[in-house]
């Protein structure tokens, strides 16, 4: 248990550094991949909804602390992604190798819309129409593209983690 906790903390630390310092260099049209969100999706798919929710809350909290404003927004958004990704995958999962891609796509949409709603409530003027076109859709596509690179052994582990057989 302690080992898993330390492993999760270490992984989050590495992903945060990469997200803040390296991911901006991979930006296309101003949109960069969200490595922390993809980490949350990965955790949710391999370790279940509770672990995904906790890791999501921690990852989002770190993002909020880096910004120093609107604390709790990304934490809640990522926690929701962690909680719902595993459950949606369990319910709708088939013997599909593209589960990480679909999970990344849906998780990104959920996280960005949740963050957008909370930021709006907190007073940040973010228009939805242009936001969907300029931020949400491109982010979903980029994260899904990165998720394609997930190795096959990871996908099989994700299937095992969800208690679904690997099929023929």
């Amino acid at each position, binding site marked *: 248990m302690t080992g898993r906790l330390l492993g999760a903390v270490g992984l989050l630390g590495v992903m945060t550094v990469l997200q*803040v*310092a390296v991911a901006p*260099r991979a930006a296309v049209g101003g*949109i960069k991949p969200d490595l922390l969100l993809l980490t949350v999706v990965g955790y949710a798919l391999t370790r279940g909804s509770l672990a995904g929710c906790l890791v999501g809350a921690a990852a989002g909290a770190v993002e909020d602390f880096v910004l*120093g404003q609107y604390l*709790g927004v990304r934490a809640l958004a990522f926690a929701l992604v962690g909680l719902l990704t595993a459950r949606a995958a369990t319910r709708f999962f088939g013997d599909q190798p593209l589960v990480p891609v679909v999970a990344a796509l849906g998780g990104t949409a959920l996280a960005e819309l949740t963050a957008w709603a909370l930021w709006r409530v907190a*007073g940040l*003027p973010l228009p939805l129409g242009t936001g969907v076109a300029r*931020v949400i859709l*491109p982010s979903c596509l980029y994260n899904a593209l990165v998720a394609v690179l997930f190795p096959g052994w990871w996908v099989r582990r994700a299937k095992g983690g969800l208690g679904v057989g690997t099929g023929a």
Partner: protein
Amino acid sequence: MRIATARVAAALAVGLLVVFLAGLTAAERDRVTVLEQAVREALRPPLEVVVRVQEAIRGTAVTLLSLPRIREEQEKLRAEAARVRELERRLAVLEEENRRLRALLGFRPPVEGRMVGAQVVGRNPDNWLSRVVIDQGTRAGIGRNAPVMTAQGLVGRVSSPGLYQSVVTLLSDPGSAVGAMVARTREAGVCYGQGGTELLRMRFFSRDARVEPGDQVVTSGLGGVFPPHLLVGTVVETFRGDYGLVQYATVRPAADLRSLGEVLVLLPGTSPSEPVPPSPGGVPSAGREGPR
């Protein structure tokens, strides 16, 4: 049933707590909490290492790719050096003359005060906001709302100062607002970031503001945060909104906000040296700068 109700109640409680916390921390603070500072300090060393490694890799790659051209350029540079030495001699003469003339006119540079150089070590993790992390903080004398600029122009202001690192809100951030004016006609307004794009939207105080594509936009100094006459950007297009009652312009920032490396932070005490006369349309009432 009871379990489902309890879960819904718990989810609602968490949601309300987050909304409360986000609202509480929506306003910028002069100091961050100990927990936030601890997280930032934990990330600082690896961030600086990663940035140094990136710079080293980029420098090595550039050098290797440039080797074929270097020898040719060497010859050209030798001839250039001789010419530059002559120009330097003439420049020294002109500088002395300039100094004498400025003293005669009582001229002062647009910005007086100290500046601190800082390197950008990271950017905001999400894709909505436009913020960068710099490697200087309150230990270097940096406070909240300190203007940040590059040689090309204004970049933004410090929104969350830490001990050794600070977060800078860029001009293109949706929470950014800068008092600005058209350099040519002195028509005043406010430049807002839009989020998701580097372009700014300028809202003029006058309904019939004289502005054209290509006009340069500078800070007006009216909001009290940014000194006047700092270059903001260039007008790309003008249009009317709000049933034709308001004049807008799209402004492209002068500084490349997507590729920031080194920046300059203006320290407290930096003040404008010239008062800004009112625009022909009347003195605008407190166009508040900084966070919207």
